[in-house]
């Protein structure tokens, strides 16, 4: 056949671009968020929110977006505790706040750099209820009716594990898991359960929603789900 095989070149060129993007993508992403992100933040139309720059992806496993207002919200703490608690939004707000600024890393790859969180330490909530001897783990339930998560007691007592109510200086929206969610800084995003409804103190770890579907229970960023390099 005569002619130049331009079609093949386009095809192979795209594969090259794709491969380069896989290798360099996280650097390009970081650059885009530093250089372009600030301009997108000023865009009033909201259309730029669709671009894959500096954005959270909203993952919900339930049938509809859960909603609970501040007044009707309750956080239940039960199980192996001295005193089961039912905390209102106001109760949680009244506790000593803690701020954290960390990258948010999803196990599937997307990452949002330097996210500002505010909430109370999960350890403080546990102390308030009084954890009994023999307790080993926590089981979390979401008021979406489906999602569950787990932590060992030792993990839960870390300083960088929050019961969070603010994201980037604003009250948590429904999409981001408001009014109250968990934020577990050293672990992949699926551990940070949204729409936190209930904390049960148990004597053993019960795997959560995605963990029953193949993800690791101990989800350290960079040291789980088959990884052993260090967290970014």
């Amino acid at each position: 056949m005569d002619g130049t095989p331009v079609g093949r070149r386009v095809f192979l060129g795209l594969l090259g671009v794709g491969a380069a993007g896989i290798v360099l993508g996280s650097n390009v992403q970081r650059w885009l968020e530093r250089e372009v992100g600030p301009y997108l933040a000023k865009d009033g139309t909201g259309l730029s929110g669709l671009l894959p720059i500096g954005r959270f992806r909203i993952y919900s496993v339930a049938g509809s977006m859960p909603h609970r207002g501040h007044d009707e919200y309750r956080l239940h703490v039960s199980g192996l505790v001295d005193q089961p608690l039912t905390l209102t939004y106001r109760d949680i707000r009244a506790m000593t706040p803690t701020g954290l600024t960390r990258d948010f890393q999803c196990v599937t790859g997307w990452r949002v750099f330097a996210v500002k969180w505010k909430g109370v330490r999960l350890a403080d909530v546990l102390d308030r209820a009084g954890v009994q001897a023999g307790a080993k783990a926590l089981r979390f339930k979401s008021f979406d009716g489906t999602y569950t998560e787990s932590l060992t007691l030792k993990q839960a007592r870390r300083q960088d594990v929050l019961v969070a109510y603010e994201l980037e200086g604003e009250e948590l929206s429904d999409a981001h898991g408001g009014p109250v969610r968990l934020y577990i800084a050293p672990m992949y995003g699926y551990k940070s359960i949204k729409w936190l409804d209930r904390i049960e103190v148990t004597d053993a770890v019960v795997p959560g929603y995605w963990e029953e579907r193949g993800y690791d229970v101990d989800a350290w960023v960079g040291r789980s789900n088959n990884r052993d390099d260090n967290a970014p």
Partner: protein
Amino acid sequence: MIPRFDRVERVAHWTTAALFGVLMLTGAVLYAGPFSAMFGRRELFRQVHVYAGILLPLPVLLGAAGRWGAQLRSDAGRINRWTRDDARWFRRRNRARPGRVDVGKFNAGQKLNASFFAGAVVVMLATGLMLRWPNPFSNDLRTGATFVHDWFAFGIWMAVLGHIYFAIRDPVALGGMTRGTVTPYWARTERPAWYREMTGEQSERLEGRTPR
């Protein structure tokens, strides 16, 4: 009427188109916050998206395999090969005088479109598999795969919308992919070199002066 695409090509095209539709819509639900929020059921959409993605290359590959795939293979060869007329086609300003360019079965736009989709499908499949089964890959590679999957998805949306726009603007060409045939008039004016090939008519080659 002049036969343009045989049954195998048409089935391959429309099956692929249907899978594209499923992937683009489920992809939008998985990707865009407002849609994710509206529909929820992430696990269901994820499963549909993953299976549709894995099936995506099959219609064309099966269509091209075996004896029934002769015309599909031959058309793929035509799409691959570019001549001077393709360069002229891109440079020309006046669509109303298509005779200036001696276009074969496919014009340069169609060739570029098909090659783009072939490459994009492979890239989307590879990065998609990395996102679905991320365990062997470092966080940086996962972020890279997400980056590529996202931006290629934008490109694919543009290309598909453009593809549909051009198809609607040219109903005879669209008929080539639905009924399988086109009118002789269309072939003679829009695809003169192919028209001569199909009819054996020795009409004078429409010599292309390069438009300035």
